């Protein structure tokens, strides 16, 4: 008994010793925390590596950018609750606006960087299984009987809100459309949704890995990535007749960088996203680059599309209140389990 107790204590001591010894090895000269939304994992892994080289050459400092990923709304909530993000790179402006309203970020954040602080864009597409067995070509095809549609929860996922607005945009642009017909279209659409994941990547996994549903409403970049990961012959990307210009913006979190003294490198990190090098990485990861030269190089990958923008819905503040806040359009049309 005594023997057993002694070795157990020894093992514990050894374990804690190992922990203490290995922890500082990861530390670098400076660290940043980039709190991002769900499908940017591969993108920022590549960009962070490139930025570290760039910053080392420019400032002679070693920088490690740590990543946190999740549903955009949930991530904004975590930053509000004290997650020490130096920069936020979220799925939509409304989630960063929420941080600005609480004083974590200056109110003019969208004017501090070019293109509304959105270094690259994306759009919303439909991903279907090989051979398109349900014959999905545009939004109304999603209402066909027996078609199960996968999309994440707009309450927690930014991508889901873009999905919702893309569908709404199409419904509003139909001949003789009224608020009532648009609402009815969305109500019918969400009748076809068997499950709402919390984040876009979870929804993609439900569709691609767990083989749930017939159509995935997805970020263009996540749809291309799914084809890359699961084999191009497994899925087909369907571009609807109308979609939305999805603008995932970026911002320095002022309250955090001022406390940590990391403003200079955080600002440089976001500016780096606009450089041709980062724009090229973005294009390689299936985002639509802002840089015209880079965009031309990858042009054949991004078909021209008729796009509405968030301004068509009166901006994010209006759209958020009208559609996604408690009691908004989404709450009215969606009844779980029906």
């Amino acid at each position, binding site marked *: *008994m005594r023997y*057993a107790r002694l070795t157990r204590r020894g093992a*514990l001591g050894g*374990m*804690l010793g*190992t*922990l203490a010894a*290995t*922890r500082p090895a*990861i530390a670098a000269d400076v660290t940043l*925390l980039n709190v991002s939304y*769900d499908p940017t*994992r*591969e993108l920022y892994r590549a960009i962070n590596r490139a930025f570290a080289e760039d910053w080392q050459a420019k400032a002679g400092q070693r920088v490690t950018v*740590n*990543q*946190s*990923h*999740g549903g955009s709304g949930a991530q904004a909530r*975590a930053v*509000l*609750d*004290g*997650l*020490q993000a130096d920069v936020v790179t979220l799925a939509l402006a409304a989630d960063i606006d929420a941080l600005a309203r609480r004083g974590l970020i200056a109110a003019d954040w969208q004017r501090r960087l070019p293109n509304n602080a959105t270094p690259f864009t994306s759009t919303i597409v439909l991903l279907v299984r090989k051979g398109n067995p349900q014959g999905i070509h545009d939004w109304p095809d999603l209402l066909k009987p027996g078609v199960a549609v996968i999309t994440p929860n707009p309450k927690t996922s930014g991508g889901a809100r873009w999905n919702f607005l893309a569908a709404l945009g199409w419904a509003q642009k139909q001949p003789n459309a009224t608020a009532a017909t648009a609402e009815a279209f969305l109500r019918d659409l969400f009748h076809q949704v068997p499950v709402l994941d919390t*984040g876009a*990547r*979870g929804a993609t*996994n439900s569709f691609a890995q767990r083989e749930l549903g017939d159509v995935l409403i997805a970020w263009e970049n996540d749809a291309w*990535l799914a084809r890359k*990961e699961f084999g191009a012959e497994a899925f087909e990307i369907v571009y609807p007749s109308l979609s939305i210009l999805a603008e995932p913006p970026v911002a320095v979190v002022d309250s955090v960088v001022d406390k940590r003294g990391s403003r200079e490198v955080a600002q440089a990190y976001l500016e780096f996203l606009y450089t041709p090098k980062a724009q090229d990485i973005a294009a390689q990861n299936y985002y639509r680059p802002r840089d015209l030269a880079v965009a031309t190089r990858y042009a054949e990958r991004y078909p021209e599309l008729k796009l509405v923008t968030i301004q068509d819905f009166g901006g994010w503040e209006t759209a958020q209140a009208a559609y996604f806040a408690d009691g908004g359009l989404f709450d009215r049309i969606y009844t779980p389990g029906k």
Partner: protein
Amino acid sequence: MSEAFSQGLPVATRERPATRLVLTLFTVVLLVLFLLLPLAVVFTEALSHGLGNIWDSLTDPEAITSIELTLLVAAISVPLNSVCGVAAAWCIGRFQFPGRSLLITLIELPFSVSPVISGLVWVLLFGANGWFGPMLDRAGLRIIFAVPGLVLATVLVTFPFVARTLIPLMQEQGASEEEAAITLGAGFWQMFWRVTLPNIRWGLLYGVLLCNARAMGEFGAVAVVSGHIRGQTMTMPLQVEALFNDYDWVGAFTIAGLLSLLALVTLAVKAALEYRIGERSGALL
């Protein structure tokens, strides 16, 4: 545990052989379906791309951090809950006092509350907008979205395991042996080490193992307080989910396999200790 089974046996043997066979088969099929099959899936998926990929997945800095973090969280929360559990079970098992049943209810509370809530309470207490958030912020202390938050969430979720295992045991044993020790002149600690602890050691070991298994495997509560910072606040279960969502099946199933192995090792250690101490139980008692 084993006594309960052997006492039940004579009743079972009175059943017809056919009934026994059906019941046994049913149990075996259930075991295979719900325990062995998932376990087999975990290891097959992990091995699906060869041993080299497993090695790469295990030596990834993020994976190493998640393993260290899981061990650290368990190394803090399990001893803490063991000490508290023994103390609580001793008070409840030996004494009648006002509020005793309230104490039992409080100890069991984490069992009846969703783990997500067990995580959320710490955010509400120590988050930036929580009761103590601004105070902690001024002091420069990080609890939520850092290691202390993970420990707190795990402690709360695993709190009942040791106490809950020991309370019925200590109530059943009664106080007579301890009273005899005191009458014969033993001090409190002498009584505790020589009488109380040897009497409860199996129950205690069982509780500690349950507590440890849950501490390492907990997902919901730690997911709320983790902040999901790669290579910093990801315990193994969180890392499994993250890798799965990265489309890194081998990585996800490797970590999942390692978690399963830890559980199997725990079982083996339990069996080995039982055997070893069983041999010498005459001398110890």
